[in-house]
């Protein structure tokens, strides 16, 4: 893997003002790494040619045209032009956890979502997004319009800060997914970005609904490093971000048990999600974003999945 520019470090990105700028930074970094686009059409119905751009799969180059014109053209298929990608970003209060000098889980998820949208749109496909906690608070249907990226940026920035409805009781992420399924007009690639600290049974129902309707679902679980390792000492008074009861604990006493519970939770989630036919990826919010995406793409290709 090529050395990554420091500018893609979450702390550096946090200093950048504006989501658009952050996602641009990420995508440019990815392109500078000369990796091909991870999104490929799977249809066999030929539609048209388009000019080759760096990163495209060379297997789709039309060599006959190249022999005649000395220019590289790719054969495009009907479905490929109609790829729809939808980013569902959790905007619950728990997603706001994060270090003072870095990105919160929410910000991290936004960056990832926007970067993926950028890649989709750049490929000529359609991208859309929705945010919410237990229902969709903001929705932008998928489109390949040139202004779509700006609209997505505005949506994510404006809507994700609102967590007024978030509570342990009403945090039923599954509802949001069911609404998403109802709103999607055709088979889509659905990315769900959340910490998934929610009612899991509802979540699984939502995923199942999406899968039944033929959507390709990927869960990107965004967690803070602290949430994985609980690196604290001494006495702590922990106030739940989603209104849970206050807990006074001796951090040294529980850290071992806590880590075990979190690990067990993540493994259980992944196993269940995969059983439902969806994909799962854990992303830690202090990891370099470009590196996290590249690693994800590589694993995706290894598994033979397409976006």
């Amino acid at each position, binding site marked *: 893997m090529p050395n990554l520019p420091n500018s893609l470090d979450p702390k550096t990105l946090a200093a950048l003002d504006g989501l658009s700028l952050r996602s641009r930074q990420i995508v440019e970094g990815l392109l500078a790494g000369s990796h091909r686009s991870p999104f490929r059409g799977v249809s066999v119905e030929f539609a048209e040619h388009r000019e080759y751009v760096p990163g495209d799969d060379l297997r789709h180059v039309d060599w006959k045209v190249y022999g005649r014109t000395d220019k590289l053209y790719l054969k495009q298929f009907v479905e490929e032009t109609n790829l729809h990608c939808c980013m569902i970003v959790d905007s619950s209060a728990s997603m706001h956890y994060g270090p003072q000098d870095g990105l919160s889980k929410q910000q991290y998820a936004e960056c990832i979502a926007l970067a993926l949208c950028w890649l989709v749109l750049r490929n000529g496909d359609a991208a859309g997004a929705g945010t919410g906690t237990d229902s969709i608070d903001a929705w932008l249907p998928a489109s390949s319009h040139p202004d779509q990226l700006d609209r997505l940026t505005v949506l994510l920035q404006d809507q994700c800060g609102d967590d007024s409805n978030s509570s342990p009781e009403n945090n039923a992420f599954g509802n949001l997914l069911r609404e998403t399924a109802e709103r999607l007009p055709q088979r889509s690639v659905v990315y769900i970005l959340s910490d998934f*600290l929610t009612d899991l049974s509802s979540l699984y129902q939502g995923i199942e609904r999406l899968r039944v309707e033929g959507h390709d679902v990927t869960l990107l679980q965004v967690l803070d490093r602290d949430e994985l390792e609980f690196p604290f000492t001494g006495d*702590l008074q922990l106030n739940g971000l989603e209104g849970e009861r206050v807990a006074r*604990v001796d951090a040294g006493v529980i850290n071992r048990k806590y880590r075990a519970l979190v690990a067990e939770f993540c493994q259980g989630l992944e196993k269940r999600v995969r059983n439902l036919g969806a994909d799962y990826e854990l992303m830690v919010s202090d990891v370099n974003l470009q590196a996290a995406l590249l690693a994800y793409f590589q694993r995706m290709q290894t598994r033979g999945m397409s976006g």
Partner: protein
Amino acid sequence: MIALVFDAPERLWWSFVLLIPLGIHLWRRRHFQPKSWAAMQFVLQAWQEESQKAKLQNLLLVLLRVAVLALFLFAISAPSTGVRRPIVGDESTGTHHIVIIDSTYSMATIDQKSGKSALAEAKQKAIDYVRELPNGDVVSVLTIGEFEQWIVEIPGNDFQQVAAAINEITVQSAGGNLQDVLELSAELIKRYREQDPNLLNAHLVVFTDMERNVWETIIGSEDPTVSSRSTLSDLGTLNVVDCRVEPMANSAITGLAIQYDQGAFAADVTVVAELACYYHQTSNTVGISWFLDDEFVLRTETEIGAGETASVELPLKNLDTGTHHIEARLDDDSLALDNSRWLAFDSPARLRVLCVDGAEDASAAVSLAFAPTDLPDWPVFTLTINEVEFEQYHLEDYDVIALCELDVISAFNIRRLRSFVNQGGTLIVAPGQALDLESYNSFYGGSQNGLEAGLQWGNFIANEPTEDTESSIHVTGHDIGLLFRSHPNNGISALPIYKYVEIEVIENHESETVLELSNGAPLLVCSPIGKGHVLTFSTSLAIETDEQRWSDLGAWPSFLPLIHESMRYILEQRIRTANVNIGEFPERRISMNNGPVTISVQGPDGETQEYFMEFSRDPDSGEVYAYWWHREFKKPGVYYVNYRSAGQVVNSSLVVGNLAVTESDHDLLEVGVIDEVVSGIENSLGGSGLASTSEQRGLFREMLCLTLLLMTLETFWLTRQHSGNLRGGRRR
């Protein structure tokens, strides 16, 4: 019954500090750092499962901290088991006090300021100690010395009587060691503890000048688990009272020896005194006075520096035949006991020699060598007999027996000769033409009936006798050859040897070759056996002229001085039996073949002690004999031994006793060295703080070690508890 008591109980008042960790635990104001958190479900579940465990851990931690403090307090309070330190002037402590007073001869040293001896100082301190003991406690008194003895054995509480008994203690003319006394004390303590259940505690107080030899068995070993130290810890408490004095000067006669410069049968001898000067303050001149047979002879002076040694010789001429004793006496100094030394010696040697011929005139040369003159006062009596007559003679009546050219030595004679040599007799053996190797090897062999001389007789080696036959006799480093080595042209090296018997000197035995042939074969071997000696020649001593001759040794001019030098050597060795150190008992075996004998011993103080003799029969030779040994051999000086038969003195001899010079150097141990054994030394009995003991120190160390262990455990515990946090944790 074991009681736990404390040497510093007042420190237990600090026990209130145990409340500190308890207070911290109970009233700790916990400061909870507020923090917003997302994954509350895991925190709450983990806390629910771990909080009980955490409470238990906190409780254990408090108990651990309390235990650490408690053990530390316990340790500094100087605990001991089953032993209670006496508190002078208090009510009865149920203590058996063993007062041990060092009465070894270094305690006779006089202090230059007070003029009192160390023993007087020790006795005074011991009496003061006893008089201040609480009523109800009991005391036993014991002395350190070669003849350690109970002054008061049965524990008593009549302290006036005990003090009077202490006052009677006198210094011994010998050294001693503390280990023996401690073992004796241990036996007594155990015995009386069984008899009197109230005697829970034992307390030993040693009043000593801390002379190194006395303490050697206690401090000498590097291993602290040796029995001596174990004994100490088993007994109870042990204190040492320093009774050292400041001496002015001390010189000692460390040795007295006799030199037969002109041979064993000359009337002139030289007495050599070895002096050592341990320290001076005024003059380096030491005066020495000589007394021969209790008559003053001479006084000389010699220069000797501090830490140096010197020799002083006294030539004595024209001595009467018989046993003499000489005393060398130094001028007075701080320690009088090592200023005199005695020596008993024979001059000229008065010997009875029995020559046994195995062939005609076989021992003629030997007889002639012993008695070369017809002078009426010549000290040697010789008798020559043949092989057959030999069995009829009592060997105890002779000093030297020469067996020349005997073919075989019968089993009966083997037993008799072995007994004769072991009792101090001198045996001369020379081979002959018909020598039976098997018989001789049986005589010399290692079996229980033989001499166990470490010699093996081998083959006959014969050279053709020619006019120019020459041998090169080598004189070894043995002391018998001293005269020949100092006169290179003595002629013995040119002695022709035509025939000899190979003798193998077996290693690891005390036999030593005196003369050897050019090929290394021994010609004369000296074997010390028991208290006597065997001189073995490998060639015949007969003076012969025929073709069968073995050698010219008997007729050679060197033969007479060789015999005389051998006797000189044996005589110088033999005086050991008449010169004994205090602490060794002189003993003798007396033949009763001529009728029953009684003996009486007159000591240096003029007292005479009669001995009842017990008869025994030697199972080997069948001879009747009796043993005696002198039990009251405790003072330096001359002891006269008179043998009486039918009321008449039939024989007399003398034994001298000398001080074994071990403590004259005044090598006193430093307090720090003693402190390794006992934890402190009290210079005086004033005050209440006697030193604690090694046993207490051991318990103290154990407590401290346990405390440290618990502290380590706590540290490990805390470290382990927070190990997850120390690894790459980050705070918000």
